[in-house]
């Protein structure tokens, strides 16, 4: 249902100690945030990409698709960094003057954008390495070792369990609406979307009621052991 999650449980590196995977990914991630030469970003990306595709066995087609996910943001922000404003035209490689203000591109802007592009790619490959090879079960062990408060880990464990239930339900409700022409026009789409969230929320509340009963029959004493 969630592709990243699916691979986390089925990849070839899943049996490796999660702390090792976490430390390695975080180490590379932090290394990539340091002001290192540009070529090193490429190096990090290649290493992480290789480990993810070759060692963990994530199909390259889906991996490339996943890498595209954060790119909307990247494109938007690179545009805004590459274009500069100024009152004098000297620093620009290329500029146009609008009402006395220069709008253009500077060499530093290009360098900055390039750095950002490469750095983000490197970091994303690190994050993907971690999330694609470490199932949530194992991640929890890491967070326990990191001394994250118990209350937070408990919530994570429970939320993770319920996510899949509600995702499935939301999909089913949406399909049923679609079959009855709920998403024809923009206005109808908004209306149907509101209805879907209402139905989903009612189900959340019903589930809470039923699960409390189930908890009671399992001697729940206020603590979810993790």
């Amino acid at each position, binding site marked *: 249902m*969630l592709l*990243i999650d699916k691979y986390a449980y089925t990849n070839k590196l899943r049996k490796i100690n999660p702390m090792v995977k976490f430390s390695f990914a975080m180490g590379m*991630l932090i290394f990539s*945030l340091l*002001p290192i030469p540009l070529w090193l970003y490429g190096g990090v990306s290649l290493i992480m990409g290789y480990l993810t595709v070759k060692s963990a066995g994530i199909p390259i087609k889906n991996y490339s698709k*996943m890498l595209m*996910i*954060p790119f909307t*943001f*990247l494109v*938007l*922000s690179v*545009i*805004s960094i590459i274009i*500069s*404003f100024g009152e004098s035209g000297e*620093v620009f490689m290329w500029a146009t003057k609008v009402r006395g203000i*220069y709008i253009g591109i*500077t060499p530093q802007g290009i360098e*900055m954008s390039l750095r950002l592009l490469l750095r*983000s*790619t490197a*970091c*994303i490959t*690190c*994050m*993907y390495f971690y*999330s694609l090879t470490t199932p949530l079960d194992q991640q929890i062990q890491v967070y326990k070792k990191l001394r994250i408060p118990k*209350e*937070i880990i*408990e*919530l*994570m464990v*429970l*939320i*993770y369990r*319920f*996510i899949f*239930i*509600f*995702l499935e339900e939301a999909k089913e409700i*949406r399909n049923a609406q679609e079959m009855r022409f709920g998403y024809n026009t*923009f206005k109808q*789409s*908004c209306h149907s979307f*509101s209805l879907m*969230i*209402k139905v*989903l*929320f*009612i189900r*959340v*509340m019903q*589930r*809470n009621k039923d*699960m*409390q009963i189930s908890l009671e029959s399992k001697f729940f*004493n206020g*603590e*979810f052991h993790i």
Partner: protein
Amino acid sequence: MKAKIKLFIIMAFVFVMAPVTVQAMHIMEGYLPLGWAILWSVACIPFLIMGLKRLREIYGASSTNKMLLALCGAFVFVLSALKIPSVTGSCSHPTGVGLGAVMFGPSVMSILGIIVLLFQSLLLAHGGLTTLGANTFSMAIVGPFVAYGVYKFMKKKGASIGVCVFLATALGDLVTYCVTAFQLALAYPDQVGGFTASLSKFLGIFALTQVPLAIIEGLVSALIFTVLIEN
């Protein structure tokens, strides 16, 4: 009847305090330099501690609240994974990070928010680990607080419920965008014009892409609300 009223109240606050976002609002992994990544994470800490304290109080009152809070957290995550209708055909995702705030007190929402944002980055690749602090600050702390404040204020002024919800969600969104733009401009001042030029650039881009979405979000939230009242 009592249960129904309770449900209504919960729903009201869910959507009032649900700032909305598109995927592009999450600052992506690796985008912020190390210094800023640390700074924004540190900025979240006091709110998280407050949240944790409140969480413990709530659990102390009744441990059955754990289940409810977790269900709400999952609900919020699922909302953020759904595509909401939008005119341009592009997709946007609502983020109901503020859920549960009134049920359990506003500070809890920072905890719920950071968990949802962590799952978003790990399971959906929206946002990132090094930018988790910055994203939590804008989406799970500032946005919901503003939405909540606006709602309370408008309610006091006697505005109709639809208007309250619309303004609260739309403004909550916009403030979240502004904070994100601010975070980006601080990290990447313009080569020529410095911080102000950079801020106006980021705000400009967000204005183009996000303002219409904020308005849509506000409308959808208001609509959901009316649907609920009718029930």
